[in-house]
Protein backbone atom coordinates (compact mmCIF):
# COMPACT_ATOMS: atom_id res chain seq x y z
CA UNK A 1 0.00 0.00 0.00
CA UNK A 2 1.37 3.42 -0.93
CA UNK A 3 2.13 6.00 1.73
CA UNK A 4 2.49 9.01 -0.54
CA UNK A 5 1.27 9.70 -4.05
CA UNK A 6 2.73 12.80 -5.61
CA UNK A 7 1.88 14.13 -9.04
CA UNK A 8 2.36 17.87 -9.39
CA UNK A 9 3.36 20.65 -11.69
CA UNK A 10 4.98 23.71 -10.18
CA UNK A 11 6.89 26.67 -11.52
CA UNK A 12 8.61 29.54 -9.75
CA UNK A 13 7.91 33.08 -11.00
CA UNK A 14 11.54 33.21 -12.20
CA UNK A 15 10.79 30.37 -14.58
CA UNK A 16 12.20 27.20 -12.98
CA UNK A 17 9.65 24.46 -13.43
CA UNK A 18 8.94 21.05 -12.01
CA UNK A 19 6.67 18.37 -13.38
CA UNK A 20 7.13 15.23 -11.38
CA UNK A 21 5.25 12.18 -10.17
CA UNK A 22 6.15 9.32 -7.88
CA UNK A 23 4.68 6.92 -5.38
CA UNK A 24 6.41 6.29 -2.06
CA UNK A 25 5.98 3.04 -0.16
CA UNK A 26 6.85 2.40 3.47
CA UNK A 27 10.45 2.69 4.63
CA UNK A 28 13.04 5.33 3.88
CA UNK A 29 13.00 6.65 0.34
CA UNK A 30 15.69 8.89 -1.06
CA UNK A 31 14.84 11.41 -3.73
CA UNK A 32 18.02 11.85 -5.72
CA UNK A 33 18.98 14.12 -8.56
CA UNK A 34 21.44 16.76 -9.63
CA UNK A 35 21.54 20.19 -8.01
CA UNK A 36 18.66 22.34 -9.21
CA UNK A 37 16.47 19.39 -10.17
CA UNK A 38 13.86 20.46 -7.58
CA UNK A 39 14.37 17.95 -4.76
CA UNK A 40 13.81 20.47 -1.96
CA UNK A 41 10.91 21.96 -3.91
CA UNK A 42 9.19 18.56 -3.80
CA UNK A 43 9.58 18.48 0.00
CA UNK A 44 8.18 22.02 0.25
CA UNK A 45 5.20 21.05 -1.91
CA UNK A 46 4.47 18.00 0.25
CA UNK A 47 4.79 20.03 3.48
CA UNK A 48 2.48 22.75 2.13
CA UNK A 49 5.16 25.45 2.13
CA UNK A 50 4.68 25.89 -1.62
CA UNK A 51 1.51 25.47 -3.65
CA UNK A 52 1.60 23.53 -6.92
CA UNK A 53 -0.03 25.02 -10.00
CA UNK A 54 -1.89 21.77 -10.40
CA UNK A 55 -1.84 18.11 -9.47
CA UNK A 56 -2.50 15.96 -6.43
CA UNK A 57 -0.68 14.96 -3.25
CA UNK A 58 -2.15 12.16 -1.15
CA UNK A 59 -0.76 10.89 2.15
CA UNK A 60 -2.26 7.67 3.58
CA UNK A 61 -5.49 8.26 1.63
CA UNK A 62 -5.77 11.81 2.96
CA UNK A 63 -5.78 14.39 0.19
CA UNK A 64 -3.25 17.10 1.05
CA UNK A 65 -3.59 18.90 -2.24
CA UNK A 66 -5.88 18.48 -5.22
CA UNK A 67 -6.15 21.30 -7.73
CA UNK A 68 -9.35 19.92 -9.27
CA UNK A 69 -11.10 19.44 -5.93
CA UNK A 70 -9.65 22.75 -4.69
CA UNK A 71 -8.13 21.07 -1.64
CA UNK A 72 -5.00 22.64 -0.17
CA UNK A 73 -4.38 21.77 3.47
CA UNK A 74 -2.21 24.28 5.36
CA UNK A 75 1.19 23.04 6.62
CA UNK A 76 -0.11 22.69 10.18
CA UNK A 77 -2.89 20.37 9.00
CA UNK A 78 -0.79 17.93 6.97
CA UNK A 79 0.76 15.81 9.70
CA UNK A 80 4.15 15.98 8.04
CA UNK A 81 7.41 16.37 9.98
CA UNK A 82 10.06 18.41 8.22
CA UNK A 83 13.75 18.51 9.13
CA UNK A 84 15.28 21.46 7.32
CA UNK A 85 18.77 21.34 5.84
CA UNK A 86 20.00 23.97 8.31
CA UNK A 87 17.78 22.68 11.13
CA UNK A 88 15.83 25.91 11.79
CA UNK A 89 15.79 25.42 15.54
CA UNK A 90 14.05 28.27 17.34
CA UNK A 91 16.91 30.36 18.73
CA UNK A 92 14.92 31.85 21.62
CA UNK A 93 13.82 28.48 22.99
CA UNK A 94 15.85 25.89 24.89
CA UNK A 95 16.33 22.45 23.38
CA UNK A 96 13.58 21.13 25.66
CA UNK A 97 11.12 23.79 24.48
CA UNK A 98 12.13 23.26 20.84
CA UNK A 99 11.36 19.57 21.24
CA UNK A 100 7.98 20.20 22.84
CA UNK A 101 6.92 22.90 20.34
CA UNK A 102 5.26 20.48 17.91
CA UNK A 103 4.17 18.03 20.58
CA UNK A 104 2.15 20.72 22.37
CA UNK A 105 0.36 21.54 19.15
CA UNK A 106 -0.68 18.04 18.13
CA UNK A 107 -3.51 16.03 19.60
CA UNK A 108 -1.76 12.74 18.90
CA UNK A 109 0.28 11.31 21.74
CA UNK A 110 1.97 8.55 19.77
CA UNK A 111 5.59 9.36 20.50
CA UNK A 112 6.90 9.64 24.03
CA UNK A 113 9.12 12.61 24.88
CA UNK A 114 11.47 10.64 27.13
CA UNK A 115 11.84 7.90 24.53
CA UNK A 116 12.93 10.42 21.89
CA UNK A 117 15.32 12.11 24.31
CA UNK A 118 16.78 8.71 25.12
CA UNK A 119 17.16 7.45 21.55
CA UNK A 120 18.67 10.69 20.29
CA UNK A 121 20.77 11.17 23.43
CA UNK A 122 19.45 14.66 24.13
CA UNK A 123 19.16 14.42 27.91
CA UNK A 124 22.16 16.63 28.65
CA UNK A 125 21.10 19.27 26.12
CA UNK A 126 17.55 20.03 27.24
CA UNK A 127 18.38 23.31 29.01
CA UNK A 128 20.81 24.58 26.42
CA UNK A 129 20.04 27.06 23.64
CA UNK A 130 20.58 26.15 19.97
CA UNK A 131 23.52 28.55 19.47
CA UNK A 132 25.58 26.53 21.93
CA UNK A 133 25.10 23.22 20.09
CA UNK A 134 27.33 21.52 17.54
CA UNK A 135 25.99 20.70 14.08
CA UNK A 136 25.38 17.08 14.99
CA UNK A 137 23.53 18.03 18.18
CA UNK A 138 21.37 20.54 16.27
CA UNK A 139 20.50 17.86 13.72
CA UNK A 140 19.47 15.41 16.46
CA UNK A 141 17.28 18.08 18.11
CA UNK A 142 15.67 18.94 14.75
CA UNK A 143 14.88 15.26 14.13
CA UNK A 144 13.51 14.83 17.66
CA UNK A 145 11.36 17.93 17.31
CA UNK A 146 9.88 16.71 14.02
CA UNK A 147 9.25 13.19 15.40
CA UNK A 148 7.51 14.48 18.55
CA UNK A 149 4.85 15.96 16.27
CA UNK A 150 3.92 12.28 15.59
CA UNK A 151 4.12 12.79 11.83
CA UNK A 152 2.59 10.46 9.29
CA UNK A 153 5.56 11.19 7.05
CA UNK A 154 9.01 12.51 7.89
CA UNK A 155 10.80 14.74 5.39
CA UNK A 156 14.58 15.13 5.65
CA UNK A 157 16.33 17.75 3.55
CA UNK A 158 20.02 16.89 3.07
CA UNK A 159 20.16 15.42 6.57
CA UNK A 160 23.91 14.88 6.76
CA UNK A 161 25.40 17.24 4.22
CA UNK A 162 26.00 20.17 6.61
CA UNK A 163 27.89 17.98 9.10
CA UNK A 164 31.60 17.34 9.50
CA UNK A 165 32.60 13.96 8.07
CA UNK A 166 33.51 12.82 11.59
CA UNK A 167 29.93 13.43 12.79
CA UNK A 168 28.04 11.95 9.88
CA UNK A 169 28.16 8.28 10.85
CA UNK A 170 27.05 9.00 14.41
CA UNK A 171 24.11 11.21 13.34
CA UNK A 172 23.11 8.68 10.65
CA UNK A 173 23.06 5.98 13.31
CA UNK A 174 20.79 8.07 15.56
CA UNK A 175 18.51 8.84 12.61
CA UNK A 176 18.18 5.18 11.59
CA UNK A 177 17.48 4.15 15.18
CA UNK A 178 14.73 6.79 15.62
CA UNK A 179 13.06 6.08 12.27
CA UNK A 180 13.08 2.31 12.86
CA UNK A 181 11.85 2.63 16.44
CA UNK A 182 8.73 4.57 15.45
CA UNK A 183 8.18 3.06 11.95
CA UNK A 184 7.71 6.45 10.37
CA UNK A 185 7.74 6.52 6.56
CA UNK A 186 10.52 8.86 5.55
CA UNK A 187 11.37 10.76 2.40
CA UNK A 188 14.82 12.28 2.22
CA UNK A 189 16.52 14.33 -0.42
CA UNK A 190 20.25 14.30 -0.84
CA UNK A 191 22.91 14.68 -3.44
CA UNK A 192 25.32 12.81 -1.21
CA UNK A 193 25.78 9.11 -2.06
CA UNK A 194 27.06 8.23 1.42
CA UNK A 195 23.94 9.60 3.17
CA UNK A 196 21.71 7.65 0.82
CA UNK A 197 23.59 4.40 1.36
CA UNK A 198 23.41 4.81 5.13
CA UNK A 199 19.78 5.88 5.41
CA UNK A 200 17.65 4.91 2.41
CA UNK A 201 15.98 1.62 1.50
CA UNK A 202 15.04 2.69 -2.02
CA UNK A 203 15.70 5.64 -4.30
CA UNK A 204 13.61 7.70 -6.68
CA UNK A 205 15.50 9.65 -9.29
CA UNK A 206 14.52 13.13 -10.40
CA UNK A 207 17.06 13.05 -13.21
CA UNK A 208 15.07 12.69 -16.46
CA UNK A 209 17.99 10.88 -18.07
CA UNK A 210 18.12 8.26 -15.31
CA UNK A 211 15.34 6.01 -16.63
CA UNK A 212 16.40 2.87 -14.71
CA UNK A 213 16.21 4.38 -11.25
CA UNK A 214 13.04 6.29 -12.12
CA UNK A 215 11.08 3.37 -13.47
CA UNK A 216 12.00 1.13 -10.55
CA UNK A 217 10.50 3.33 -7.86
CA UNK A 218 8.32 6.02 -9.30
CA UNK A 219 5.33 6.37 -11.53
Amino acid at each position, binding site marked *: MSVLRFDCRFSYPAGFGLNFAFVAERGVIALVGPSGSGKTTVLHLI*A*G*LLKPQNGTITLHDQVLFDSKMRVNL*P*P*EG*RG*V*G*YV*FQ*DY*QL*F*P*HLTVGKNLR*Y*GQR*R*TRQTGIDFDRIVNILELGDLLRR*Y*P*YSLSGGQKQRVAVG*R*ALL*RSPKLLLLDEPLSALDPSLRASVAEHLVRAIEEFHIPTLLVSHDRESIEWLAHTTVSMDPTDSAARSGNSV
Partner: protein
Amino acid sequence: MLLTVAEWQAVRLTLLVASVAVVVSLPPAVAVAWLLAKRNFPGKFLLETIVNLPLVLPPVVTGYLLLVIFGRQGLLGGFLERTFGLRFVFDWKGAALASAVVAFPLLVRPIRVAFSAIDDRLVQAARTLGAGPFDAFCSIMLPLARPGILSGSLLGFARSMGEFGATIMIAGSIPGETRTMSLLIYSQLDAPGGMEQSVRLVAASIIIAATALLAGELLERYGRRRLQGATA
Protein backbone atom coordinates in the same frame (compact mmCIF):
# COMPACT_ATOMS: atom_id res chain seq x y z
CA MET B 1 17.08 68.04 42.27
CA LEU B 2 14.02 69.82 43.64
CA LEU B 3 11.21 70.70 41.29
CA THR B 4 8.28 72.99 41.97
CA VAL B 5 4.72 71.65 42.19
CA ALA B 6 3.98 72.84 38.65
CA GLU B 7 7.15 71.19 37.36
CA TRP B 8 6.32 67.88 39.06
CA GLN B 9 2.83 68.09 37.54
CA ALA B 10 4.40 68.59 34.12
CA VAL B 11 6.81 65.66 34.63
CA ARG B 12 3.98 63.35 35.73
CA LEU B 13 1.76 64.46 32.84
CA THR B 14 4.59 64.03 30.34
CA LEU B 15 5.30 60.50 31.57
CA LEU B 16 1.58 59.67 31.40
CA VAL B 17 1.19 61.13 27.89
CA ALA B 18 4.34 59.40 26.58
CA SER B 19 3.40 56.05 28.14
CA VAL B 20 -0.15 56.13 26.79
CA ALA B 21 1.12 57.22 23.37
CA VAL B 22 3.49 54.23 23.21
CA VAL B 23 1.01 51.68 24.55
CA VAL B 24 -1.73 52.81 22.14
CA SER B 25 0.48 52.99 19.07
CA LEU B 26 2.45 49.78 19.70
CA PRO B 27 -0.08 47.23 18.32
CA PRO B 28 -0.60 49.11 15.00
CA ALA B 29 3.17 49.77 14.83
CA VAL B 30 3.88 46.03 15.14
CA ALA B 31 1.27 45.22 12.49
CA VAL B 32 2.58 47.87 10.07
CA ALA B 33 6.21 46.88 10.70
CA TRP B 34 5.38 43.24 9.96
CA LEU B 35 3.52 44.20 6.77
CA LEU B 36 6.41 46.35 5.56
CA ALA B 37 9.05 43.76 6.50
CA LYS B 38 7.44 40.54 5.35
CA ARG B 39 4.75 41.22 2.78
CA ASN B 40 4.67 42.56 -0.74
CA PHE B 41 1.42 44.17 -1.80
CA PRO B 42 0.17 46.92 -4.08
CA GLY B 43 0.42 50.27 -2.31
CA LYS B 44 3.30 49.22 -0.04
CA PHE B 45 5.29 52.29 -1.09
CA LEU B 46 2.29 54.49 -0.28
CA LEU B 47 1.90 52.95 3.19
CA GLU B 48 5.61 53.43 3.82
CA THR B 49 5.31 57.10 2.83
CA ILE B 50 2.29 57.69 5.08
CA VAL B 51 4.00 55.98 8.03
CA ASN B 52 7.12 58.12 7.67
CA LEU B 53 5.28 61.36 6.95
CA PRO B 54 5.26 62.60 10.58
CA LEU B 55 9.08 62.40 10.55
CA VAL B 56 9.38 65.04 7.84
CA LEU B 57 6.21 67.11 8.28
CA PRO B 58 6.48 70.20 10.51
CA PRO B 59 4.83 69.14 13.81
CA VAL B 60 2.50 72.12 13.55
CA VAL B 61 1.17 70.73 10.27
CA THR B 62 0.65 67.34 11.94
CA GLY B 63 -1.22 69.15 14.72
CA TYR B 64 -3.36 70.98 12.19
CA LEU B 65 -4.28 67.72 10.46
CA LEU B 66 -5.11 66.13 13.82
CA LEU B 67 -7.41 69.08 14.58
CA VAL B 68 -9.14 68.63 11.22
CA ILE B 69 -9.70 64.92 11.98
CA PHE B 70 -10.12 64.83 15.76
CA GLY B 71 -11.42 68.35 16.48
CA ARG B 72 -14.94 68.64 17.96
CA GLN B 73 -16.23 69.44 14.47
CA GLY B 74 -13.68 67.16 12.83
CA LEU B 75 -14.16 64.16 10.60
CA LEU B 76 -13.88 61.70 13.52
CA GLY B 77 -13.74 63.92 16.61
CA GLY B 78 -17.47 64.67 16.81
CA PHE B 79 -18.40 61.02 16.37
CA LEU B 80 -15.90 59.82 19.01
CA GLU B 81 -17.10 62.40 21.53
CA ARG B 82 -20.79 61.67 20.98
CA THR B 83 -20.39 57.88 20.91
CA PHE B 84 -17.60 57.13 23.39
CA GLY B 85 -17.21 60.41 25.26
CA LEU B 86 -13.63 60.66 23.93
CA ARG B 87 -12.46 64.26 23.70
CA PHE B 88 -9.08 65.20 22.31
CA VAL B 89 -9.14 68.97 22.02
CA PHE B 90 -7.73 70.76 25.11
CA ASP B 91 -7.40 67.41 26.84
CA TRP B 92 -4.38 65.28 27.86
CA LYS B 93 -5.70 62.56 25.52
CA GLY B 94 -5.13 64.98 22.65
CA ALA B 95 -1.51 65.36 23.79
CA ALA B 96 -1.18 61.56 23.87
CA LEU B 97 -2.69 61.32 20.38
CA ALA B 98 -0.31 63.95 19.01
CA SER B 99 2.67 62.19 20.63
CA ALA B 100 1.55 58.81 19.30
CA VAL B 101 1.27 60.09 15.73
CA VAL B 102 4.60 61.94 15.78
CA ALA B 103 6.43 59.02 17.42
CA PHE B 104 4.82 56.33 15.22
CA PRO B 105 7.56 56.16 12.54
CA LEU B 106 10.22 55.87 15.25
CA LEU B 107 8.36 52.91 16.71
CA VAL B 108 7.90 51.21 13.37
CA ARG B 109 11.51 51.48 12.16
CA PRO B 110 13.36 49.26 14.70
CA ILE B 111 10.48 46.77 14.79
CA ARG B 112 10.57 46.50 11.02
CA VAL B 113 14.35 45.93 11.08
CA ALA B 114 13.86 43.24 13.74
CA PHE B 115 11.18 41.45 11.68
CA SER B 116 13.32 41.66 8.52
CA ALA B 117 16.19 39.93 10.33
CA ILE B 118 14.05 36.89 11.17
CA ASP B 119 14.53 33.98 8.79
CA ASP B 120 11.16 33.12 7.20
CA ARG B 121 12.06 29.45 7.41
CA LEU B 122 11.67 29.61 11.20
CA VAL B 123 8.02 30.41 10.65
CA GLN B 124 7.82 27.65 8.03
CA ALA B 125 9.31 25.24 10.59
CA ALA B 126 6.72 26.34 13.14
CA ARG B 127 3.92 25.79 10.61
CA THR B 128 5.09 22.24 9.85
CA LEU B 129 5.12 21.62 13.61
CA GLY B 130 1.43 22.43 13.85
CA ALA B 131 1.33 26.19 14.49
CA GLY B 132 -1.24 28.24 12.59
CA PRO B 133 -0.20 31.61 11.11
CA PHE B 134 -1.20 33.65 14.19
CA ASP B 135 0.31 31.11 16.59
CA ALA B 136 3.58 31.14 14.62
CA PHE B 137 3.57 34.95 14.68
CA CYS B 138 3.05 35.05 18.46
CA SER B 139 5.39 32.21 19.37
CA ILE B 140 8.23 32.85 16.91
CA MET B 141 8.12 36.31 15.31
CA LEU B 142 7.17 38.39 18.36
CA PRO B 143 9.71 36.89 20.79
CA LEU B 144 12.50 37.15 18.21
CA ALA B 145 11.56 40.75 17.43
CA ARG B 146 11.35 41.65 21.13
CA PRO B 147 14.61 43.67 21.23
CA GLY B 148 13.38 45.73 18.25
CA ILE B 149 9.96 46.17 19.86
CA LEU B 150 11.53 47.36 23.12
CA SER B 151 13.97 49.59 21.31
CA GLY B 152 11.18 51.13 19.20
CA SER B 153 9.01 51.64 22.26
CA LEU B 154 11.79 53.48 24.07
CA LEU B 155 12.60 55.59 21.02
CA GLY B 156 8.92 56.44 20.66
CA PHE B 157 8.73 57.22 24.37
CA ALA B 158 11.72 59.55 24.15
CA ARG B 159 10.24 61.30 21.12
CA SER B 160 6.86 61.64 22.84
CA MET B 161 8.56 63.25 25.82
CA GLY B 162 9.78 66.09 23.65
CA GLU B 163 6.64 66.60 21.57
CA PHE B 164 5.67 70.26 21.29
CA GLY B 165 4.25 71.53 18.00
CA ALA B 166 1.47 69.04 17.36
CA THR B 167 0.60 68.89 21.07
CA ILE B 168 0.08 72.63 21.46
CA MET B 169 -2.10 72.67 18.33
CA ILE B 170 -4.58 70.06 19.57
CA ALA B 171 -4.24 70.06 23.36
CA GLY B 172 -3.17 73.63 24.09
CA SER B 173 -1.06 74.42 27.15
CA ILE B 174 -3.35 74.22 30.19
CA PRO B 175 -1.44 74.06 33.49
CA GLY B 176 -2.02 70.75 35.23
CA GLU B 177 -4.06 69.36 32.34
CA THR B 178 -2.15 69.50 29.09
CA ARG B 179 1.04 71.40 29.96
CA THR B 180 3.79 68.83 29.43
CA MET B 181 7.47 69.43 30.22
CA SER B 182 8.24 70.92 26.80
CA LEU B 183 5.27 73.27 27.03
CA LEU B 184 6.17 74.32 30.58
CA ILE B 185 9.77 75.03 29.58
CA TYR B 186 8.47 77.18 26.73
CA SER B 187 6.11 79.13 29.01
CA GLN B 188 8.86 79.54 31.65
CA LEU B 189 11.18 80.99 29.02
CA ASP B 190 8.48 83.51 28.18
CA ALA B 191 8.57 84.91 31.72
CA PRO B 192 11.28 87.14 33.26
CA GLY B 193 14.20 85.07 34.62
CA GLY B 194 12.90 82.10 32.65
CA MET B 195 16.32 80.91 31.47
CA GLU B 196 17.42 80.18 35.04
CA GLN B 197 14.03 78.85 36.07
CA SER B 198 13.82 76.29 33.29
CA VAL B 199 17.26 74.74 33.94
CA ARG B 200 15.84 72.14 36.33
CA LEU B 201 13.19 70.96 33.90
CA VAL B 202 15.62 70.99 30.97
CA ALA B 203 18.00 68.79 32.99
CA ALA B 204 15.14 66.45 33.95
CA SER B 205 14.10 66.17 30.27
CA ILE B 206 17.63 65.37 29.18
CA ILE B 207 18.09 62.73 31.87
CA ILE B 208 14.77 60.94 31.15
CA ALA B 209 15.15 61.02 27.35
CA ALA B 210 18.83 60.01 27.42
CA THR B 211 18.06 57.11 29.75
CA ALA B 212 15.32 55.88 27.42
CA LEU B 213 17.59 56.16 24.36
CA LEU B 214 20.50 54.44 26.08
CA ALA B 215 18.28 51.60 27.23
CA GLY B 216 16.93 51.26 23.68
CA GLU B 217 20.43 51.11 22.20
CA LEU B 218 21.60 48.52 24.72
CA LEU B 219 18.54 46.35 24.13
CA GLU B 220 19.00 46.50 20.37
CA ARG B 221 22.66 45.46 20.67
CA TYR B 222 21.78 42.64 23.03
CA GLY B 223 19.06 41.41 20.68
CA ARG B 224 21.35 41.59 17.65
CA ARG B 225 24.08 39.64 19.46
CA ARG B 226 21.61 37.03 20.61
CA LEU B 227 20.19 36.52 17.12
CA GLN B 228 23.65 36.40 15.55
CA GLY B 229 24.77 33.87 18.14
CA ALA B 230 21.66 31.83 17.61
CA THR B 231 22.00 31.58 13.87
CA ALA B 232 25.80 31.15 13.79
